[in-house]
């Protein structure tokens, strides 16, 4: 298992290199530069800016510099937070005036007083909170719904569960979002139509410091809008896989030896039926990332979402690279976790 994980992590590194190289090449091939304005800047200023951000160097050198800055930790005597050039995501204090700094994603060209790491620190926690709540909601709703539908196949419960599921897959966030806002935010005025309930500073860097009714009031609609779609996918899969499992011989054996139905279902059937459900958690996570972005736009949540589009239209190279790499890392890690989870759920699976 340990060797398998190491091999996977190495492969992950290769994938990330490929992703970063392709993105780098593609974004530099897109015509236009970060300093194009409606009213063109004087040539000298553009040259100066290009020089400052090393955009005058050959692409290979630029890429190598970028990778070096992100990947290689270095010692610095500048206190974190003071320098824009030297802003790293991970700062470890090693001496009185010495910090070990790692992962410098560079400056943002569009908002010149911020770095990509600043954006990560301020916006990512919000997207993260939304994403985690949405996936929790999806799992907590989807799995019981699927189980109920499977155990009571062809009854009202089954039809109800599957109706919810088909509703979920047919009503994307951009449809459900505005409708929820209209019903609960505008007409009934129960919930605030836009905004997010937490502000920096965050506990441990990502947890909201004011968890309470006020915080959840803002979170309810986006979490439901995002989670419902995914819970539908989970519910359908759980139902299908549980239906298959409860017809297996070992379930009959379990029943035959006189186990209580509850034990048969929880201990024997459920655990096995959740394996296919685990497989889709990876892709689901990816979908959620995209969905979070949509939900943020609709509900006016100040998360990472808007940087996806604006960074590309602004040709804000470091922000593009940063966001793509960040999500690629999350995605590969999620897939790795899913694979490890298999081994836990199904003892027959052994990785070597």
């Amino acid at each position, binding site marked *: 298992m340990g060797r398998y994980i190491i091999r996977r992590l190495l*492969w992950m590194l290769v*994938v*990330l290199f*490929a*992703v970063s190289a*392709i*993105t780098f090449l*593609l*974004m530099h*091939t*897109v*015509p*236009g530069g970060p300093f194009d304005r409606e009213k063109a800047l004087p040539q000298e200023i553009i040259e100066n800016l290009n020089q400052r951000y090393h955009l005058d160097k050959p692409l290979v050198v630029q890429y190598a510099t970028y990778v070096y800055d992100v990947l290689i930790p270095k010692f610095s005597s500048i206190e974190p937070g003071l320098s824009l050039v030297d802003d790293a995501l991970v700062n470890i204090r090693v001496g009185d005036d010495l910090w070990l700094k790692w992962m410098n994603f560079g400056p943002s060209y569009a908002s010149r007083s911020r770095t990509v790491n600043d954006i990560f620190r301020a916006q990512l926690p919000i997207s993260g909170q939304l994403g985690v709540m949405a996936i929790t909601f999806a799992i907590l709703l989807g799995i019981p719904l699927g189980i109920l539908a499977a155990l009571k196949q062809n009854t009202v419960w089954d039809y109800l569960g*599957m109706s919810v599921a*088909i509703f979920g*897959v*047919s*009503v*994307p966030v*951009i*449809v459900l*979002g*505005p*409708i929820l*806002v*209209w019903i609960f*935010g*505008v*007409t009934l005025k129960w919930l605030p*139509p836009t905004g997010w309930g937490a502000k920096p500073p965050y506990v441990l860097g990502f947890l909201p410091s004011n968890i309470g009714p006020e915080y959840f009031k803002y979170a309810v609609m986006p979490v439901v809008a995002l989670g419902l779609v995914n819970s539908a*996918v989970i519910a*359908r*899969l759980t*139902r*299908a*896989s549980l*239906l*298959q499992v409860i017809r297996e011989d070992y379930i009959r054996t379990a029943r035959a030896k006189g186990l209580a139905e509850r034990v048969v279902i929880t201990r024997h059937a459920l655990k096995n039926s959740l394996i296919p459900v685990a497989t*889709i958690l990876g892709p689901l996570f*990816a979908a959620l*990332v*995209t969905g979070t*972005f*949509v939900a943020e*736009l*609709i509900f006016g949540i100040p998360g990472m979402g808007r940087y*996806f*589009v604006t960074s*590309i*239209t602004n040709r804000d190279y470091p922000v*593009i690279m940063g*966001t*793509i790499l960040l*999500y*690629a890392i999350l*995605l*590969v890690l999620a897939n790795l976790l899913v694979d490890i989870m298999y081994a836990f759920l199904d003892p027959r699976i052994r990785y070597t």
Partner: protein
Amino acid sequence: MSVQTEMLRVGAGGQPLTRKRESLWADAGRRLLRNKAAVMGGVIVILLILAALLAPFIAPRPFADQVLVDNNKVPDWVLAVFSNMKPYAQISNDYPLGADYVGRDLLSRIIYGARISLSVAFIGPIISLLIGVAFGMVSGYFGGRVDNLMMRVVDVLYAFPTLLFIILLMAFFRSTFAKPDPGSFAYGMSQLDARLGGMLFIFMGIGLTAWEGMARLTRGQVLSVREKEYIEAARTIGAGHVRIMFRHILPNIVGPLVVAETLTIPAYISFEAFLSFIGLGVNPPTPSWGAMISDGSQVIRTYPNQAVFPALALAITMFAFNFLGDGLRDALDPRLRGTQ
């Protein structure tokens, strides 16, 4: 490939009960017609196709017709439903669903919007099917090192956040083909795109990013038939690789692939809507439901009808395709009933 079913049983009176021989497709068709939800979905899809094709005749007005003095006007019945608008809304019954912020008829725009959604619903899967099947077939058929390498490519693409990749690709297409010299390839592309209201690049973007799942599925299917005797037989009589792939393997695996792709249609529709929502979809004034929802969301507090109606259109279309897709899958492979 047709599965012949012939059942011979002995009935109560000692007479043999025979069931008519039926081809797979006839059998599937019968099962499909028995599924009420699927039939309803199919009817809605047909109506949508008709609406999209006949849009110029059905729509009360041209989609880009702006009557600025009529901006945000609503008819009486809409006002009755969305009662919060009563204090300020201006009434005009010329617009069945109301007018938007520049006085364009919402209903006409929704009808024309069906064109975009339906084109994506059909062309998106076809592109992804073409690329994915070709890729997966080569990978699965040749196996070994080729397979390994090709699947690693898929792995890398899989790690890309699809959305970011597509946004990047669209920006790339849009600006690369922006204003090139007349007569060149790029010029032709941008002309074609302009003709299609900006849809060409959406198709290319979606097609280039959405085939990975199909490639994996195809490869799996190829692996399962590759070692069958009839493939070996074909090889013995001297059939080439291409011939084996297209004449012997493809017909045997295409069924499940098409069904799997049908199930992804709603995903393409919502993807296009989403791209238009963030302003990367079709060029204005070509109407797309996503763009309309986006515009409507801006005024959702004051004129909710402008977001709710296109949202309903999108949802109904998604429902229809989902019901039809589920029904098709159940009909073609009853064992899979209720699975993904």
